[in-house]
């Protein structure tokens, strides 16, 4: 997480992967402490998780932490939708890839697309 204090407009992109759920916990925690203006965008990534289930989990964790944030569901072309959405935020946070059985990190195409194309600061959570 960035070291800066003060509240920021943060967009969290979730695909249900292990690292993205770690990103959810950290981002919610930071938002609670710093009063960030947070929004969540759920997309279908390599994790093959159900978008509705991931959105539901996110909503539960947000409400458990007492953080108010809109939860969006992105249908197709998640990469370009995220790049577009992120324009209105100070920072975009994503899980930093998939972890293979061997423990290798694999960066999926959505992350690569966002990494290259986003104009917003991007944090990949490990």
């Amino acid at each position: 997480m960035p070291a800066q204090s003060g509240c920021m407009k943060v967009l969290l992109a979730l695909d249900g992967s292990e690292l993205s759920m770690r990103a959810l916990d950290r981002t919610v925690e930071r938002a609670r402490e710093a009063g960030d203006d947070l929004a969540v965008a759920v997309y279908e990534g390599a994790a093959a998780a159900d978008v509705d289930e991931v959105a539901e989990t996110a909503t539960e964790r947000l409400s458990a932490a007492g953080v108010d944030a809109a939860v969006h569901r992105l249908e197709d072309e998640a990469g370009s939708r995220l790049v577009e959405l992120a324009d209105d935020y100070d920072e975009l946070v994503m899980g930093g890839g998939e972890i293979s059985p061997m423990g290798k990190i694999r960066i999926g195409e959505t992350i690569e697309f966002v990494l290259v194309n986003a104009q917003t600061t991007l944090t990949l959570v490990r």
Partner: protein
Amino acid sequence: MSPEESPTDDDFPVPPRSVVDGEGRDIRFREGDEGDLEAVVDMYTQFDPSDRAQGIPPSKEPAIRDWLDAITTSGNLQVIAEHEGDVVGHGMLVSDEDGGYELALFVLQDYQGAGIGTELLRTLLGLGSDRGVERVWLSVERWNEPAITVYEKVGFERTGQASFEIEMDMTLD
């Protein structure tokens, strides 16, 4: 690729075995188990950061131990390459949840470029074949041409490119 360069499963040797590497060193390959943990940790703590692949091996010893604890469980296979009693290479087959095995191997910097990686790979495939492993896959960074060349030489085929990485697999009889 000419026929004599196309290895079949018969070409994958089973450990233990010894070879003389390109530098004239005697390298012994054997199956690894839990008892080798400390020697393997020792190898990975010496590992050059620039030779990491997709986040492994981790850089700090506690993280190396966590990583090895998670992947050296029963059912997974390991081959160790030793020179004069020190571990200089380590290869693993780690079960996925779909009946396949993910492969990775690492060779210490001072022992690279002498054919040890290729022999470690062949021996690991021999061990896998001997233990009934049928499908082996791996991912490799797309700029790691030397590794891709070795994998293709032993019979791996590209199955996809997930972005920064190329995925490859092969079937063992």
